[in-house]
């Protein structure tokens, strides 16, 4: 870890100014991802702007939406009464991620910005286009058991590791960001991107922008929502596949559905076609199985992750069964 300049910001403006004129300056929030990457020499910012004192920790309900400050802690959001009541899917997803200690440090903004856990990305002795553009993708013909099956490119097949983001994309959230020129809103689905020819870019946030908050519009999914995560051990592991499922039920019939998948793409993977297929149908295993099939259209596996083609739809069905109360 190189020596870097350290600065504390107390306002959004000061924070954004802190990044000015230094493309190698970064915000630090919980530090749970950034410090790890710096220790392993995967990233080496020359300046850190500590944003923990910027007052962006509130969780509020107003104007038909729930707004969560970018610096709210993952544990604070997961345990928040309002969130548990209105968006239990988000609470479940957060609690399925990392560990209690990490959730006590990790922030909403940091969680969105966390980088892939691809082992080639993490080893500076191995090729990785995301870490070192042009060096090649180690995973493409390597050990890609943990890698993507949707939206991959020849350049990168990594997945976004967040659990929280899977719930947020399912819940039609949007992201409020601020930069030198003011604020803008990005639909959550457009916040993260596919690797394409620029795998080094994880998302659409500009270098000098800061995440201010995440907003979730009110919805009718609170009663029938479930986050189902399959991993290599019972806890404290990244997803092989995870599914966020939310249903708006009218008796036994699905009025509306929200579905997103983790562990399968470079971004939180929303399953809109499958959602459409669920709408208006009875909540049965049969219906869920059909939707799952639709969801998997276009999936493409690599040498070691073909199991996700089978695990994926199964987890969709399980998540939906749980959401519908069939289990």
């Amino acid at each position, binding site marked *: *870890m*190189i*020596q*870097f*300049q*350290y600065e*504390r910001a*107390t306002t959004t403006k000061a924070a954004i100014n802190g990044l000015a004129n230094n493309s190698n300056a970064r915000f*630090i929030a*919980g*530090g*749970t991802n950034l*410090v*790890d990457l*710096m*220790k*392993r020499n995967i990233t080496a910012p020359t300046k*850190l702007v*500590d944003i*923990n*004192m910027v007052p962006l*920790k*509130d969780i509020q309900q107003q104007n038909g939406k729930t707004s969560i400050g970018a610096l*709210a*802690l993952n*544990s*604070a959001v997961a*345990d928040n009464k309002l969130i548990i009541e209105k968006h239990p899917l988000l609470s479940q997803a957060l*609690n399925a991620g*990392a*560990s*209690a*200690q*990490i959730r*006590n*440090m990790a922030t909403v903004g940091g969680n969105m910005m966390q980088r892939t856990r691809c082992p080639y990305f993490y080893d500076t002795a191995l090729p990785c286009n995301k870490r070192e553009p042009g060096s090649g993708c180690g995973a493409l013909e390597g050990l890609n058991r943990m890698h993507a099956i949707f939206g991959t490119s020849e350049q990168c097949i990594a997945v976004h590791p967040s659990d929280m983001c899977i719930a947020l994309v399912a819940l039609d959230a949007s992201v409020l960001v601020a930069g030198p020129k003011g604020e803008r809103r990005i639909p959550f689905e457009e916040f993260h991107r596919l690797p394409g020819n620029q795998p080094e870019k994880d998302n659409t946030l500009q270098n000098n922008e800061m995440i201010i908050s995440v907003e979730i519009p009110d919805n009718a999914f609170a009663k029938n929502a479930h986050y189902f995560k399959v991993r290599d051990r*019972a*806890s*404290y592991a990244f997803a092989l596949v995870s599914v966020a499922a939310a249903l708006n039920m009218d008796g036994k019939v699905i009025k509306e559905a929200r579905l997103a998948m983790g562990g399968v793409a470079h971004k939180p993977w929303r399953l809109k076609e499958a959602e459409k297929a669920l709408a208006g149908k009875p909540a049965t295993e049969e219906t869920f199985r059909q939707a799952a099939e639709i969801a998997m259209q276009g999936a493409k596996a690599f040498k070691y992750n073909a199991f996700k083609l089978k695990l994926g739809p199964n987890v969709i069905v399980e998540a939906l069964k749980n959401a519908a109360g069939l289990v």
Partner: protein
Amino acid sequence: MDKNQANNRPEKEDHHESRRDFLKTSSILTAIAVAPVAVAKAAEHNLGEKISAAFETTPVNMTVNGVKKQLNVEPRSTLLDTLREQLDLTGTKKGCDYGQCGACTVHVNGQRVLSCLSLTVMHEGQEVTTIEGLAKGEELHPMQQAFIKHDGFQCGYCTPGQIMSAVACINEGHANNEADIKEFMSGNICRCGAYPNIVKAIQEVKNGGQKS
């Protein structure tokens, strides 16, 4: 305390001693800067170390186990390395250095966090409690007693982290049943495999009504 309120105090004015030393010796530093090999050589002497320390460190005030500390740390020092190497509080353990094991768990303003992923400079004005600060003098914390009683450890290396985490787990309200305890303690790995005994210890303390 509401964890969102767990906050830093405003930055203090910088009157730190080593900074003054630094100013005094800055002309030496300039000289060294143009002859980098000399730095390495100078570092062999205590003088050199002092100079480079002043050059690279930032002052931080924090309370550690109830004692106010004025520290000078490199911004890149983690809380874990500061505790272990600078304050000789080696009860907090390094099991991975990457947030993957929980051995380094300490309380910051009452919350359990991983000291290996936290920069010391980020704790200006905060209260840090380590395993060394848990007992009241000779009297062990009930969790420490329960770990002994239920043999919640073998080699003892994960133990300080387990205990700090366990105390917080109860305070957070995440120790209501066995399944809960296991899930919310899963960030603390024990390679010796003392898990079932740790869970028993936590249940006992929880049922005995833990005073924090």
